[in-house]
């Protein structure tokens, strides 16, 4: 004991002696992310945290407002031709990339070509409607489309619309991500994998006056408790994705401000309807069983128990805060009688088993154990298998599953939350769900010209979704940011990004 104590005391004394310099990060903003970003090339990258870094590193053609309206960023205006097959964009003048390359119509053309042709590009499907570009002036470009595409502007408000320096991209090829060169408010300085990504203020930024930090450092800190502790100790200034269960503690700290926004995505259970042999099971064959499970779940209680009510209970691919939500089909309460009746109708009056695979982290496991308990009341006996994500994903896409707890981070345009999951040939339709009416509606909504027209189509599609339930929706994540109260002017966005324009540091 004496040894341990002595060692501890010496360690601490040594520490005190060394605590001379605790620098104030007045101008370097330190932001903790939940995980490390992947490759820093907008055309190749796939992670959510990667997009957070891009919000400071790479400007896009257009941006969104917190209400999801498309607003100018590098494109100052755009016009769609009558037949919807051409979009003419006017570009911002006087913009340069971090390497000094000027931003102009040629640069946009090069970027779109890169996104469409680079072997490693993950943006191909997002830009598939663009058949060609035509530079019509130094700062004007025409995008030619195969047909009307209502989703395109929303794609250009995300990674597909991020502009990288054509010079740097041509020189680096697929290795561009090691030293990304964009035109955003901060330029890339350094990256140490799993440790930090450092960006430095770009003095020639077109909107440099709105940027009030000399540099921004992103630090991956996976453990939620530790992220909060780092904020409280002053080691970081801001964190994303505070755990809902830590909200009370963060709010009680007078030096910490908490902001939130309901996300664009959803969490739910995907059923295997027709994906290989395992799709041929009662749960895949009879939608009444899936409906029964849906009735058995008290979504509001789920939200209260696991997330202390901080998230949003959900029954549709969008949260009720979304303009696309079908308000005539609100989240219903638990109805055990109805669930039992449906089970009996489907031929299982004495209950039925269901095997659900779950990603192996605490939150999904807690969610599914609550669902398990609720389903049990209706006679649905759920068994859970916890799998690490790679296994879960490959089993799901190979059809080696009965049901899978999985979600979607969400897209600005409603198409992104639906088309690829619910149409017969959808790229991520792991259910292999197929309903001609659904295909028709979602395809029509893709090309619909007015918001009203599209809304009507989605309303109808959602009614069918809730009937067929190849995806059973449970809840919507709420992004929760916590930051030092010296940070002023931060705006929460439903896409979960951290936009630093106009954000200041006031001691």
């Amino acid at each position, binding site marked *: *004991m004496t*040894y*341990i104590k002595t*060692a*501890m005391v010496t*360690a*601490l004394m*040594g*520490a*005190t002696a*060394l*605590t001379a310099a*605790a620098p104030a990060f007045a101008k370097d903003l330190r932001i903790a992310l939940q995980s*490390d970003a*992947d*490759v820093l*090339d907008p055309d*190749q990258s*796939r*992670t959510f945290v990667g997009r957070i870094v891009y919000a400071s590193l790479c400007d896009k053609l257009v941006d969104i407002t917190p209400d999801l309206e498309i607003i100018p960023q590098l494109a100052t205006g755009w016009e769609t031709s009558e037949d919807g097959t051409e979009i003419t964009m006017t570009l911002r003048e006087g913009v340069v990339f971090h390497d000094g390359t000027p931003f102009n119509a040629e640069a946009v053309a090069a970027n779109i070509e890169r996104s469409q042709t680079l*072997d*490693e*590009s*993950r943006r*191909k*499907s997002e830009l598939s409607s663009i058949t060609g570009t035509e530079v019509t002036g130094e700062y004007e470009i025409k995008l030619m489309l195969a047909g009307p595409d209502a989703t395109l502007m929303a794609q250009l408000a995300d990674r597909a619309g991020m502009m990288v320096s054509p010079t740097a991209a041509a020189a680096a090829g*697929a*290795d561009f*991500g*090691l030293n990304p060169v964009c035109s955003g408010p901060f330029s890339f300085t350094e990256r*140490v*994998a*799993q*440790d*930090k990504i450092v960006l430095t203020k770009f003095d020639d930024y077109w909107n440099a006056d709105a940027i009030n930090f000399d540099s921004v450092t992103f*630090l*991956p*800190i*996976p*453990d939620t*408790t*530790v992220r909060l*502790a*780092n904020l*409280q*100790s*002053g*080691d970081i200034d801001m964190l994303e994705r505070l755990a809902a269960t830590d909200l009370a503690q963060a709010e009680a700290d007078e030096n910490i401000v908490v902001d939130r926004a309901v996300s664009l995505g959803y969490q739910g259970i995907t059923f295997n309807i027709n994906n290989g042999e395992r799709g041929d099971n009662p749960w895949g064959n009879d939608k009444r069983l899936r409906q029964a499970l849906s009735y058995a779940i008290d979504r509001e209680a789920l939200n209260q128990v696991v997330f202390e009510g901080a998230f949003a209970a959900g029954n549709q691919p969008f949260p009720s805060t979304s303009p696309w939500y079908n308000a005539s089909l609100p989240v219903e309460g638990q109805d055990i009688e109805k669930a039992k009746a449906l089970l009996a109708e489907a031929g299982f009056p004495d209950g039925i088993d269901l095997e659900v695979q779950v990603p192996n982290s605490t939150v999904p496991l807690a969610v599914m154990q609550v669902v398990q308990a609720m389903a049990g009341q209706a006679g649905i006996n759920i068994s859970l298998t916890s799998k*690490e*994500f*790679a*296994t879960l*994903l*490959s*089993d799901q*896409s190979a059809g080696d599953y009965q049901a899978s707890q999985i979600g*979607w*981070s969400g897209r600005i345009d409603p198409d992104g939350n639906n088309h690829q999951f619910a149409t017969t040939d959808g*790229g*991520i339709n792991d259910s292999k769900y197929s309903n001609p009416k659904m295909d028709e509606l979602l395809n029509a909504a893709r090309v619909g010209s007015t918001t009203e027209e599209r809304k009507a189509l989605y309303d109808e599609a959602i009614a069918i979704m809730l009937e067929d339930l190849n995806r059973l929706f449970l809840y919507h994540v709420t992004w929760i940011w916590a930051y030092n109260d010296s940070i002023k002017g931060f705006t929460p966005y439903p896409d979960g990004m951290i936009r630093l324009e106009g954000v200041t540091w006031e001691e």
Partner: protein
Amino acid sequence: MLRFLSRRVLIALPTIVLISIFVFALQKLLPGDPLLVMAGEERDPAVLEALREKYRLNDPIPVQYFAWIGNALQGDLGVSLRTGQPVTELMAEKLPVTIQLAVMSMIFALVIGIPAGILSAYKKGTVTDYVANVIALSGLSIPNFWLGIMLILLVSVKWQLLPASGYVPLSEDFWQSIRTMLMPSFVLGTALAATLMRHTRSSMLGVLSADYVRTARAKGLSERVVVLKHGLRNALTPIVTLTALLFGELVAGAVLTEQIFTIPGFGKLVVDAVFNRDYAVVQGIVLVTAVGFIFMNLVADALYFVLNPRLREQ
């Protein structure tokens, strides 16, 4: 001795080949497709197939293996699928961190564990012995994450004495580097100290009752000399074995502790690589860890000879 060493080094080569084959074979055995995981939400089958071709993931495993070995011999361990960084660069970044953490933890473990073990054996059956044992075992049973988070909450948040997390290279700022590593190495060190303490105690007990120690006592040598010189030296075999093994384990990765203190070391790297099926990274790390284990075991074997004069005569 020299012959012994050179023979061992030669034998080590097949081990490494064996390990590398093993790791490659696992690539086929593990479920999950590296590109599917990498793709995350963007799973365009055509793009995935093109990438599979590009990274030669469709080649038969033996072909991939020989291509990898060929490159490895030229110092190229491939590129991380996830971040695009060369594996050698990634490891060059992490190795110093990991070694620093391992060495500092081992210092904590040895400085606490061995004296506590000797004292406990010497005072066997007394209150000191019991207390030392209880503390050692609690050091072993207290989960590292609990101790880690408690330390952060107390030392960093409440007292503001040490940084809560992060890493500063030794070359950049020596003292700051030591400071950031103090808590994590203490957390790791205490758990290892418990193991070392229990072993030291056990083998000291055996030695202290042995004839030659009694003889030494009878000759009137001071207790200090008896315990430390005659006792400890003969009790060291299991401790040497363990220290080598534990050090190897530390290099292989103290995942949870690294994660809690956000230290960019091997542990986190390998776990993320396995979960992401980033095989180039996994293979590189396993290779380096294997060399580490072989080296540490070699050191242990050499120390057996140093400690036991009779072995040397053979």
